[in-house]
Every structure is written in structure tokens, then in C-alpha cells.
């Protein structure tokens, strides 16, 4: 209380820019909005050109050249690498496996996702708990999911093998030649279904309950109700999810690496795994890069095609209004 208040220094109590005579507009306000925006975007643009566009262009160059793996010397090869890849039966085998894998993953993941979403719309004991736990697989790193499922599938120490043994069944090896791809797809679906479930649930919760009540009064069975009420609402989100999962499945690497390493005997050698082997184990960059370009083009075309088909006018919510 007894402190003596010092006299305030002369001048305004807040700092001001030293006046130079004329009012100065800050630089960011002097330029046009477009310039300001471009200045903010510039770092990302420069960065992406340097670390994405340039490498991708470089990979095109690699796919068109012969590289000596020991000396690193390159010479132009034209389309030799593409020809070599396309005439290799192993490539077609891998392509077929990739298609098979993508189909398995897409079917399993969308079925699980839709089932979970429909289930979570219902009321039951412990629903909040399930709601919270269901993201767990999705929040796992993909490589960790691979290791986790190794402990389920392994014929030596896996949980399934143990259960089979205790039930007195013959030894169970789901990672064997004929079942490797579906088993991998199951793990992939396990990991990515939660994402779809959440996404679909958000769309399901928009549907008014009255629609279902009215339909029941009209004597519609459960399948009819799903077809006429539910389906129009989830058609678009479902399509987006399918494309997302399918595209991801075509690029899957971590899971395959940890669970089967492309085996047994090449039974799960999908394109991504073949590219990895060709490039980083056999160090043949040309064919590896050519294969990665083929994969990139096919995936892009299929994804774009599917989007166009799925987003045709007439699909989606407007139909729901008619129902």
C-alpha cells in the first residue's frame, strides 16, 4: 500500500511503431489476397515438388533405364523394362493375387463394417464400451497388427492352433498355401472395418426412426426395410469406404511382410511384395520401377472409375426422400 507510484513516462502507455511520417501498411495487407495466400502455400508447394513430384518423375526415368546394380551406371532402355515385366508369368501371378486379395479384403471389411455399424445402432448392455473398444484395431500400427495376428495364426504357438489341438482337431495352419490370401485379408479387414463402421454409423444415425416404424406397420420384412430405407442412405458413404479399402488393400505391404513374407512358395506374393523383392532384394531397379508404375496406373484408373460410377446423379440421399 505504501509503494510510491512512479509517474508514468510521457507518451502513450502502449508501444507504437516508430512513426516515419507517413502511415505504413504492413506488407501482408498491402499485397492482394491471392498473393498473400500463395505466399502461405509456397513452402508446401516447393516441398512437395522436391520430395514427391521430383521422386515420382525420377521413378519414371528409372523405369525407362537399365541400372547396373553394382556400378550404378544407367543407360536408356526405352520400354524394355515394361516389356520384360509384362511377359513375366510371375508378374501375372502377382497381379492375380493382388486382385484376389483386394476382393477378399473389400468383401470382408465392408461386411464387418456394415454389420458392426448396424449393431451399434441398436441398444444393448455395454454399448458405450464396445463403441470405445472398437477403434482399437484401427489405432494399431499395421506392422503391429501383423505381429499380433502371427500369434493367432502361427501353427506352432498360435491361439487357433491351440484351440484346434484342445478340441482334438487336426493341426490348423491358416497361413498355408491355399488359405494365405484369405487369412491375410481377414487381418486387413479386422484392422480397417472399425473405420468403416464409424463412418457408416454416422450415416445410419441420420435416418428417422419413424421410417422404420411406418415400414413395420406396412408389414415390410427386415430385408425389405434394409433395401428400401437403409440402403439409399448409406449408398454413397459405403461406396467411398469400398474405394478407400480397396485402394489400401492394393498397396498392402506391412501385414504381408510380417505374416507370410510373400510365402509360402510365393502364395501371397502380391504386386507390392513383388516390387519390394525385385527392387530391394534383387536390386533390379528398372523392372521394379516399371511394376510400381503399372500398379499406380491401374489403381488410379480403377479408383477414379469407381468414384465416377458411385457418384452418378440419382444415387444417394434424394432417393431416400422417396422411400
Amino acid at each position, binding site marked *: 500500500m505504501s509503494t510510491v507510484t512512479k509517474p508514468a513516462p510521457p507518451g502513450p502507455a502502449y508501444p507504437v511503431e516508430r512513426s516515419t511520417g507517413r502511415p505504413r501498411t504492413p506488407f*501482408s*495487407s498491402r499485397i492482394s489476397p*491471392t498473393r*498473400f495466400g*500463395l*505466399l*502461405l*502455400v509456397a*513452402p*508446401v*508447394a516447393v516441398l*512437395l515438388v522436391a*520430395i*514427391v*513430384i521430383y*521422386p*515420382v518423375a*525420377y*521413378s519414371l526415368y*528409372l523405369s525407362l533405364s537399365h541400372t547396373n546394380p553394382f556400378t*550404378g551406371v544407367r543407360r536408356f532402355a526405352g520400354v524394355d523394362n515394361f516389356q520384360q515385366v509384362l511377359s513375366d508369368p510371375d508378374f501375372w501371378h502377382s497381379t492375380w493375387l493382388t486382385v484376389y486379395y483386394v476382393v477378399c479384403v473389400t468383401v470382408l471389411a465392408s461386411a464387418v463394417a456394415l454389420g*458392426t455399424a448396424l*449393431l451399434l445402432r441398436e441398444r*444393448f448392455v*455395454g454399448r458405450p464400451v*464396445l463403441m470405445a*473398444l*472398437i477403434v*482399437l*484395431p484401427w*489405432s*494399431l*500400427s*499395421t506392422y*503391429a497388427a501383423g*505381429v*499380433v*495376428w502371427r*500369434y*493367432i495364426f502361427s501353427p506352432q*504357438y498360435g491361439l487357433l492352433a491351440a484351440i484346434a*489341438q484342445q478340441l482334438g482337431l487336426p493341426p490348423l495352419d491358416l497361413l498355408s498355401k491355399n488359405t494365405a490370401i484369405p487369412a491375410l485379408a481377414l487381418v486387413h479387414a479386422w484392422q480397417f472395418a472399425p473405420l468403416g463402421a464409424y463412418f457408416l454409423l454416422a450415416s445410419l444415425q441420420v435416418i428417422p426412426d419413424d421410417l422404420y416404424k411406418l415400414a413395420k406397420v406396412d408389414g415390410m420384412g427386415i430385408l425389405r426395410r434394409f433395401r428400401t430405407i437403409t440402403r439409399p442412405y448409406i449408398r454413397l458413404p459405403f461406396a467411398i469406404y469400398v474405394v478407400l479399402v480397396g*485402394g489400401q488393400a*492394393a*498397396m498392402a*505391404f*506391412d501385414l504381408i*511382410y*510380417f505374416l507370410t513374407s510373400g510365402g509360402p512358395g510365393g502364395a501371397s506374393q502380391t504386386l*507390392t511384395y513383388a*516390387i519390394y523383392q525385385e*527392387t*530391394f532384394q534383387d536390386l533390379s531397379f528398372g523392372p*521394379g520401377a516399371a511394376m*510400381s*508404375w503399372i*500398379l*499406380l496406373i491401374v*489403381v*488410379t484408373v480403377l479408383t477414379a472409375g469407381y468414384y465416377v460410377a458411385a457418384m452418378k446423379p440419382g444415387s444417394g440421399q434424394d432417393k431416400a426422400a422417396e422411400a
Partner: protein
Amino acid sequence: MRRKVLIHILALIALIWTVVPIVWIVLISLMYHHEFASADIHLFPHQPTLANYVRLLGGAAPDWNGTAQGPNAYGPLIREGLLNSAQVAVWVTVLSMIVAVPAAYALSRVQMRFRQAGLLTIVATRSIPPVATTIPFFALYQGLGLSGTKTGLVIAHMTITVPLLVWIGTSFFGGLPPGLERMARVDGCSRWRAFARVVVPASRHSMTAMAVIAFITSWDEFTFALIFNTGTPAQTFPPALSSMFFQVSVPTDVASATVLGLIPPLLVAGLFQRYIRKVNLVGL
């Protein structure tokens, strides 16, 4: 009534399907190898122990029958991997945020031309699969001496995180009240100050979510880490785990290493859960 029972059964199946694989690996990590290798496999350990973790972290712990056991030989590999992963993830987060936040802001809120085109181009780079970039990166890194370095891995990870953050960021900034900058400008802020002093503080929660996502994305990335850094001093956790997984055959040790690697991202996600909730999941 029958419907109620059916729904509960289905919920139970969903629960088992979701958690049993994860619970199983955690339980294995708490078993002695002796118990795990015994003929009757059971879900819950009779003699639960943290010995696997202790030995992995460099300590000594007795075996099930009391015999002394030294630290795990793979301990240093895993510990270094965890440290390197953390360093790489932090750098990726910081650098990605510095470039992505202003860009996301500009592309969502500044009245500029080329907005749609810019956003589309950046998002399109997200659809390039890692395999298409690993090959040229590998070839380029050998010439630049970046192969097997943390710097190299940080750059590689930014090819994924930067477009991702720009994409998520535009939806965050787009959700702010429309007149925010105009009010700041009326109060005498320049364009830059309106962004730096008004918009950024107003969206700190969303930006926390962006940072968390960048961290987790870097931590979880496998392909680049495996191809560039396996067996080098800059080896991060995923390739370290992979070497351990393919070389030793002690499942209990591998299980505890795997669980150790899951802790950091789950911890970060758990701490900031309420911020991440708002992210449009499909953007990921």
C-alpha cells in the same frame, strides 16, 4: 425378446473379434517362456510377470523357477529403435506443422485464386502409394548420403504427413466462424497478424489434433523405415522389431517388444483423445 438376445450375442462376438487378438499378445508378454511353451496353451498366465519387459529394458529378472536371467540381448536394439522413432516422429511433427498449417489456412480461408486447384493438387499427392516413392527415394538417397539417416527418414515421412495435414487442416480452419479475420482486421491487425494472433490461437485444439496425427503417422510408418534404415544406427522401432521378429524365436520376448512399441502412440492418442475425435476419419 428373441431380438434382444440375438443382439447381445452379436455384440459379444464383436467384442471378442475386436479385442481378443490384442489381449492375447499382451497376455503372452506377461508369461514366462517356460509357461508359454508348455503343452497346454491357456489364455491367462498362471504366473504373470513383468520379467520380459524388465529384461528388454536392460534389467535382470529371475526366470519362472528362480534361475537368474540377464538382460535381453535385443534390448539395446529395441531401446535405440524406440528413441530413434521418437526423434524422427517429433521432427516430422514440427516440420510438417510449420509448412502445413499456413497452407491449410490459406487454402481454406483466404479469398485467393487457384484455391481449388491448389487443394486438389496437394490432395492428389496423397494417392501416390509409398512403393512408388520408395524406389526413387532409395536411388536418390544413395547418391545424397541420406540412406540410413534420421534426416532421410524425416523427409520421407513428410511426403505422407504434409499432404495429410493440409487436407485435415483445411476442414478445421473452414469450420471457424466466417467473420473472424474481418473482426481482427477491423481491430487493426494486418492479414498476417489476423492469422498468427487470432486464427492460430482460436484453433489450437484442432492444431493439437493435427500434430498428434502427424506424430502417430510417422511412428506407425513401416515401409520407408524398413527399406532405408534397417541395420543402421538410425534404425527406428519398426525395423528393429522386424529384425527381432525374424531372428529370435522367443515369442514372449517379441510380444513384449511389440507391446512396448504400441505404448507411445496409444499414450499420445489417449492424452489428446478429445481433440482427435473431431477429425473426419475418412480424411485419413
